[in-house]
């Protein structure tokens, strides 16, 4: 049984239902009987949707091979921040739990063990605290800043 998904930039993707329903969002639509026509996904562009569908397909194919799946996931998530951001939002919107978790884990790993200055550089964060404000915040959670 095939479904048709349309990205925000009007590209149509034909996928097996089994693959598409890994998205809880799409699964609900199918169960409610609203999936007969093309399903519009205005919040996901074609580039991201292609990646997401690749994830879903591989999760169906490699379901029984944990090791192979892990290898795939690790390789899949090696993307730059822009793509990672798009994946996070898409996984959130489409409600694909394992993709959301893996993408969050990737960000967490990026930030682990870094000083605040290093994190700001990695994520391009602008520090809008005054030195006094920053000092106050450090005092609130002193345990976190103590070596």
């Amino acid at each position: 049984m095939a479904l048709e998904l349309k990205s925000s930039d009007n590209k149509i993707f034909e996928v097996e239902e089994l693959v598409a329903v890994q998205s809880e969002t799409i699964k609900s639509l199918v169960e409610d009987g609203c999936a007969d026509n093309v399903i519009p996904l205005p919040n996901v562009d074609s580039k991201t949707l292609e990646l997401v569908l690749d994830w879903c397909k591989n999760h169906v194919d490699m379901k029984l091979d944990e090791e192979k799946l892990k290898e795939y996931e690790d390789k899949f998530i090696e993307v730059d921040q822009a793509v990672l951001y798009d994946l996070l939002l898409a996984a959130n919107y489409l409600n694909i739990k394992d993709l959301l978790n893996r993408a969050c884990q990737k960000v967490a790993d990026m930030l682990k063990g870094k000083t605040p200055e290093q994190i700001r550089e990695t994520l391009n964060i602008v520090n809008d605290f005054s030195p006094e404000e920053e000092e106050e915040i450090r005092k609130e959670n002193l345990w976190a800043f103590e070596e």
Partner: protein
Amino acid sequence: MVFERKQKRRNLDGVDALDRISQLPEHIIHHILFLMPHKDAARTTVLSKSWKQVWNSLPRYDFTFCDGTYYDNSPAHFEKKIEKFVRSVNEDLLPLREHKTTIQIVQQFRLRMTLCHHKYASRIDNWIKLANRNLMESLYLELTSMNKVGRYVLPKTTFFVESLAELTLKGCKVLGNYFGDDMIKSIYLRKLTLERVDVNYLTITKILRCCPLLEEFTQSNCCVKAKRVHINYAPKLKKAKLYGVKKIKIEAPNLEELYCRGDPGRLDSDSFACNNVKKLKISMFETSKLFEDLNSKFPLLETLDLQFYDSKLKISSDRLKSLSLLCPNKQLPMLQISFSPEELSKDLPIPPIATVEHLELGNVPIMQDYTALLDGLLWSCHPKVLLIRADSESKEFVNFLSETLVIKEEEPKCCGDSHMKCWRHYLKAVKSEPYLDGMEYVKVCHCDALSDSISALEICH
């Protein structure tokens, strides 16, 4: 949900320099923080205002559980009540078990309970471990064990919960083997209170050695075997209360307030290495020569509250502002207050410095004539406020004061031509008021200009 795309900015290298991750919806950032070690997650609060806001929006809980039962002589009935209490605690703690995609902060976990059977100890273990897994900031445990049921032993991991800033234990037990001699792991507590806890005093020393951030410490009636306190590492300690001890040895360079109550006990010059103490209260201790030279022991001391046991008390200080003295035995000891240690040995009365502004006396024994006492007190210092507790003994003294402190003449003739005048010449106004809980409150006001030499006078009775 519609997510707006921001205008893409490019920095000098032409590389996309957008701060995207910070723009993610809050619950996604919560999920990311959940997957980080707690310390790293808490550090994101300092990244920027929006990251602080995300941290502030994490779910927070305050738990207070109090069994409120009292034993009514029926063990079965009591246990039933406790079972009911345990069920309700489990129910209330469900949210802590449920969430798997966000950090939850337990701001406070307070439990007061009577242990009527040892099986409840493991229930309590589970509750505490659950709170430990989430970010716990303050833990209060007050646990009473009924006969034959052993005391509750706190799980070792609790001390090392990084986010735990305040810990209060009453009636529990702490094992010494948690803290090896080569302990290097840090405990991040800022406030620690141990009341009626079964713990060895050396274990307490070891715990404190691991606490670089500790600001307040209270030890009350712990250590059944050796009632001692030994603190040799407390770099940030500001306030300490040590109750029910016989011997003290404390080294705390930043300590400002110190309260000690003996069992009774004995203090000597080795007991304290705390140069910054401003407020000191000591009761039920023999103090030997400790106060003869307050300047060197406690150079910044401003408030001293003493309930003393010795028969002779000598105090010497040049910064003291408030002095409170309570005589527990029915004898007023020989009292000498001076403002430098050298003068204590001389017998000549010399005009005082009035750094002591507040003087409080209690249990003043009944004497035939209080003149000498009054002379001695008011020679030594010119308090602005003299507070006498109106207990049954002090009443006589208060009556005496009311009569004596009335200004009779403009220029008293008692001191003749001597350039050193007694307190009567300085007395400007006296006001006597009954104080709130029945304390007579005698206000003694003096003129402002005073000589800066020192005075010492021995009062005998």
